[in-house]
């Protein structure tokens, strides 16, 4: 359950947009840290939980991530990507450190570690990051546009069915699909890590 908060920060953020909120964060305003945690704590925790076997380790990773983000807040460059992308990068590094420290604790050599890896990963962390940033972007889409995309992605409706269900003209539906996908694609390119399209050589089509 997300804690209910009425704060001036929330109002400032709504008025000035995310820029103001990031500014406050970088300036060391602790309310902005709490806001960051409220917005992205769930995503960080999800990534940690998917990467490690132990649930309480995910709690530790989440804590370490936000503390590290706070201590290193001046290194966040909002022109390079979103705060969520940055936090997830930190989280992934914490996961790696944790796995390594577990191995050291148990004095396991590198060759044996593969067999006794304490972190049974059920999905590649890269992919989890990609999903989280796309989910975040979906949440930020204008309501009607998001609704159209949700019907297409999750209910598998055709654009004609979407028009029928929503009452929107076909042209509007197609326009929402096109623009919404463009936004998701851009966000994915910027924040998606090494496997996202933007980081590959230009002109090389994705294979497989």
């Amino acid at each position: 359950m997300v804690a209910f908060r009425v704060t001036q920060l929330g109002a400032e953020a709504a008025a000035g947009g995310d820029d103001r909120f990031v500014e406050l964060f970088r300036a060391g305003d602790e309310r902005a840290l709490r806001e960051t945690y409220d917005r992205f704590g769930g995503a960080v925790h999800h990534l940690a939980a998917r990467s490690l076997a132990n649930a309480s380790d995910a709690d530790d990773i989440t804590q370490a991530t936000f503390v590290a983000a706070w201590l290193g807040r001046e290194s966040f460059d909002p022109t390079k990507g979103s705060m969520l992308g940055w936090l997830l990068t930190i989280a992934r590094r914490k996961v790696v450190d944790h796995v390594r420290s577990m191995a050291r604790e148990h004095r396991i050599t590198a060759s044996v570690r593969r067999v006794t890896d304490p972190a049974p990963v059920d999905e590649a962390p890269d992919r989890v990051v990609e999903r989280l940033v796309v989910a975040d972007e979906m949440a930020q889409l204008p309501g009607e546009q998001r609704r159209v995309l949700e019907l297409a992605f999750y209910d598998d409706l055709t654009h004609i069915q979407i028009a029928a269900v929503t009452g929107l003209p076909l042209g509007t539906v197609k326009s929402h699909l096109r623009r919404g996908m463009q936004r998701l694609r851009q966000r994915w390119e910027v924040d998606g890590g090494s496997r996202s399209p933007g980081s590959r050589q230009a002109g090389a089509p994705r294979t497989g």
Partner: protein
Amino acid sequence: MDRDHLDQDRLVLLALGEERTDDTEDGHLTACGYCRAEVEELRAVVTVSRESGPLRDLPPPPEHVWAAIAESIAAAPANGAPTNEAPANGAPANVVPMRRRRGPRWVVPLMAAAAAAVVAVVGTVVVQNALTPDPVVQAQTDLGPLPDAPSCGPSYARVLDGDRLHVHVTCPVPGEEAYEVWLLDPATAQSGLKMVSLGTMGGRTDQIFPLDPGVDLDRYSVVDVSAEPRDGNPLHSGKSLLRGTLR
């Protein structure tokens, strides 16, 4: 009809998989690398978007995680000096792992009074492991709003390790006033309320106050948060916002 490229709307529908290409489009896609790449990338966007469906409403982490974060930063240096913790996000994906300092694995921050040894979290913060204990919560209370309180969110206080009080207050940011935390002795309510001031929240949602060992928490069992004007008057303003009894 001859076009340079397929219509973007059409490419989106193809990527969604709801349409099949006709012969003309097949021909174009065979010949046109740009359109082929577009469809491939759009398909990839669709795939990752579908996979992200379950992630739309993630639950927040357990509340104790926030408490632990608040404690850690309370003991950290005030300025956000760049550290190895969070390299600039322009860095490439495969980053060299952080140097790790020798020393305690997890530095549990202690807000000790006066000259006690405060362990500052500087630079490396490593993941807590099972070897180091969490602070022991000896007593706690929700802080409920009093009738004149502004709309505050969930607030609470916890006694940690017997020597400090962690107070979490989610009230609107005060303007000219400060939020001050008190311990009240409820048995003295009729005869002249005895109270101890712990200090102010300093504009933060979380604050950790050292507890003077001379203050008996069985007597001073009520935590009170008040709005105090900045008038130099140390007495309680009488404007209590939140209150709870430690158990």
